């Protein structure tokens, strides 16, 4: 919005509930660690991600900061903002909307990590850091289309930064570090090859999307899309109430999730499920717990219920199960449901 091209509203997207849920959970609880969307082309993946960025309310960032540091998050400031805050306390702020920053497949290492600012070096004779994609991504959504086709060394950079929340640059005469905390959203078509298991594990949630199978809903998709293209402004206005309601729901959920405690039953369940499935490492326990909390918060309830755990399990576990080659990994999800039912009681 803001005078620029209107974005298709999030609330107007038909179906794809899993994808929407997974994205919202990450907004509520950013440390869940991103979403990987697997599926064919033309399943509204990129539309949904862009709609999400547009839906979110503007937030305050420090004025003039290229990394858009948040004044309230004093622990994760960049060097210059840290100095400014230390110098005169309250820096000037400006509102900023969340953006979708794309990482193209052909991106080179220096563009991703950032590099020496050539122009500055030639005109001023001084070294200066030229920020790359990871810098733009701070506080935004980093969207990697066809993440499974990304060059290995770029993936390594990405993982490095995503894991630490900081991008350390030690290259081409430049030594610099800046915050790089972003919501990582990847898409892939599994037919084009698998993802490295290490990268797969870093994505908090995985969603498998399919084209809408129901013919009535399919035609609804087309109808809405055409209406949007005919008159985007009017179309958006039509959904404004719903958008506003969703916005408020997200804000409330964020506040709630920040102070919600994980109860023993939830933690026990998560641990039992992980052990039963023999998943690798500890990320599955953590993600399951966080996602369940996020879903409860989105529902506006203080206690995590059975349905929240079930939904969270469906998104956080399948890609972490040890897969034997040539087998569908979904098979074991039945036993997970049974386990959860055991801990939480049947409906």
């Amino acid at each position, binding site marked *: 919005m803001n005078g620029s091209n209107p974005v298709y509203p999030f609330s107007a997207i038909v179906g794809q509930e899993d994808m929407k849920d997974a994205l919202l959970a990450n907004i509520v609880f950013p440390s869940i660690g991103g979403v990987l969307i697997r599926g064919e082309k033309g399943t509204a993946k990129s539309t949904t991600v862009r709609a999400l960025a547009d839906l979110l309310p503007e937030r305050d960032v420090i004025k003039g900061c290229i990394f858009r540091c948040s004044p309230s998050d004093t622990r994760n400031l960049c060097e210059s903002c840290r100095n400014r805050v230390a110098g005169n306390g309250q820096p000037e702020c400006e509102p900023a909307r969340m953006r979708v920053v794309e990482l193209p497949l052909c991106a080179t290492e220096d563009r991703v990590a950032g590099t020496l600012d050539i122009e500055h070096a030639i005109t001023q004779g001084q070294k200066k850091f030229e920020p790359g994609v990871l810098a733009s991504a701070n506080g935004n959504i980093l969207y990697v289309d066809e993440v499974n086709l990304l060059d290995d060394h770029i993936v390594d950079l990405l993982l490095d930064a995503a894991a630490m929340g900081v991008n350390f640059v030690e290259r081409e005469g430049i030594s610099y570090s800046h915050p790089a905390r972003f919501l990582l959203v990847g898409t892939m078509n599994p037919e084009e090859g698998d993802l490295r298991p290490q990268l797969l594990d870093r994505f908090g949630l995985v969603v498998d999307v399919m084209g809408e199978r129901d013919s009535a809903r399919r035609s609804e998709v087309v109808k809405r899309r055409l209406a949007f293209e005919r008159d985007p402004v009017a179309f958006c206005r039509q959904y404004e109430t719903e958008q506003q309601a969703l916005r408020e729901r997200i804000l409330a959920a964020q506040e709630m999730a920040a102070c919600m405690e994980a109860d023993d039953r939830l*933690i026990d369940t998560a641990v039992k499920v992980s052990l039963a499935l023999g998943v690798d490492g500890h990320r599955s326990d953590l993600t399951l717990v966080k996602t369940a909390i996020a879903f409860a918060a989105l529902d506006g309830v203080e206690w995590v219920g059975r349905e929240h755990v079930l939904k969270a399990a469906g998104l956080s576990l399948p890609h972490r199960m040890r897969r034997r080659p040539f087998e569908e990994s979904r098979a074991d999800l039945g036993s997970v449901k049974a386990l959860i039912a055991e801990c939480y009681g049947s409906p």
Partner: protein
Amino acid sequence: MNPAFPFPAITGHDNAKKAILCALASDEIRTLLITGERGTAKSTLARSIRTLVAGKQVLTVPQNITYDRLLGTVDLETAVSCGKIRLTPGILEQGNCQILYADDINLMDEGIVQNLLSAAENGRFSLEREGFSRSIATRFLLVATMDPDEGELTPGQMDRFDLCVRLDPIDDEEKRGEIVRRHLRFNQAPDEFSRGFSPAAKDLEEKLVSARERLPYVSIPDGHAGLISSLCLELGVAGQRGDLAVARAAKALAALDGRDEVVFDDIKLAALLALDHRRREIPDSPPPPLPPQDNKDPDKENDQEPEPPDPETPPRQDPPQQPETADRPEQTPPAPPPPAEQVFEIGSTFDVIRYLDEKSKKATSRQKSGRRTRVLSVDSSGHYRSFRLPDKNRNDIAVDATLRAAAPYQRIRERNGLAISVKKPDLREKVREKKVAHTILFLVDASGSMGVRRRMVEVKGAILSLLVDAYQKRDRIGLMIFRGTGARLLLPPTRSSDIAARMLRTIPTGGMTPLTTGLSEAHQVLTRGKFAGAGENKSIVILTDGRVNVPVNNGPPYHELSDLARDIAGCGIRFVVVDTESGFPRLNRARALAGDLEAPCLRLEDLKNRGLAASVQDFIYNTR
């Protein structure tokens, strides 16, 4: 900077924590490797070191590091403004007296890893670049992490790590729950959480200080020194680094425990930390319960006297030990000590080995994967490794190096208002390196010749097994068959094992043998269109008996085949011919084809034990 998870708050991983404390307590331990599968808190543990060393900095060595930042380079700004060449120190020098932290070291450029390890070990490195020629002293502790599933380090690199610990996922329900709880609490309120653990962190810091003070006075009883060397021999550890590392770690453990003398348990744990990653061969069967009667090494005979003292009793007090001899334990006594001095019995070597075996059981059960092949990239993709004088019009200018080259001349050059004027001789271009994937196309004779069924089973098995491995190597495997009058691309080169399994369910066989057509089409698949991409290693594995009976242009089939083969040989695609001919008489036509293609020729019959996949891998991954 976001706060690190406090060291004392990490649940489990006791040995790894001990290893870290040893490394922090002893200046002699300079390299520590933490390995483990994904999600086992490797990085959390490594980063938590920051919470233990208040006075020291932890410098991160990122994946994107280039040589100039590692080793140091010309300072651009002084060069431009004063025309003076001054050195900007790189991370190796900045790390002097600090800690360097390298995440996923197995994914880093090999040269960078080499430099890091040798600088850590030698306490100095030499800088020979851009007009500098210096040897710079630096002392730091290198802490690195890696996930062996993503590729291993070479044995030589592994040997350079003084200590190595492996983290296993924790299976205990209660502990796992505690991990989740602590992690969530830390996420919600990092400062408050860290404060809760600050008394424990303080204790550890104090413990470290007193251990550092005590360490020079810690001694290893002679008998234990013998135990260390016999352990290293027994485990097939090459070189002396292992012996030294065990001794240093054992001393650090004793110092941390507030003792002046190393005891058996110190050595046991030290061996796990320092020798497990240096073992040459891991025994398939557990070590013999009884020590072997005949000892191979006569020198060790004295040390292994089956004399009484049981390992339970504490080692007897030794005569006052000079700290400087304790430093190099394997050389300690010039003359063999009298038998009465022995403090370990012959079985204790095997006690320790059994202990190591038990601890490393899980690690050996997993299949190991090699490092991926790396080549210098010809386009502008890949990791910027170094720079050189440009030889062609490549337009991939190494701006930093170019500016540095130009900088000293700025005072005498006409600058036209710019800060730096660059002339042609200053130009440097980037040398980039990238990991390459292989594309392997199997070209298989599916005509009605002998043994076609068995051949297909073999090929299918090989493709699937190569694809499972391709998970790590990111290779593409495809299958083309030829039969009847033409060739068919049954499986376009793919990385997905699922697709391969689906598409290879049925393979049609029977008919004539149009080998020439098959070969020419296979060549086209890899040179045109989707799979023609530069920078990939491409191979065609041909399974044939070399017979051909379908002409392409109505010429004599064998002439056509030979012409084509010679034509496409040496075009950048690697060929491997697998001769499927069996029985008698042999025509050896496949061998002739291999000759024309300048390709190695294997016999399918001879591969039975090695398997097709493994043999093909040998040829394709090992550059000839």
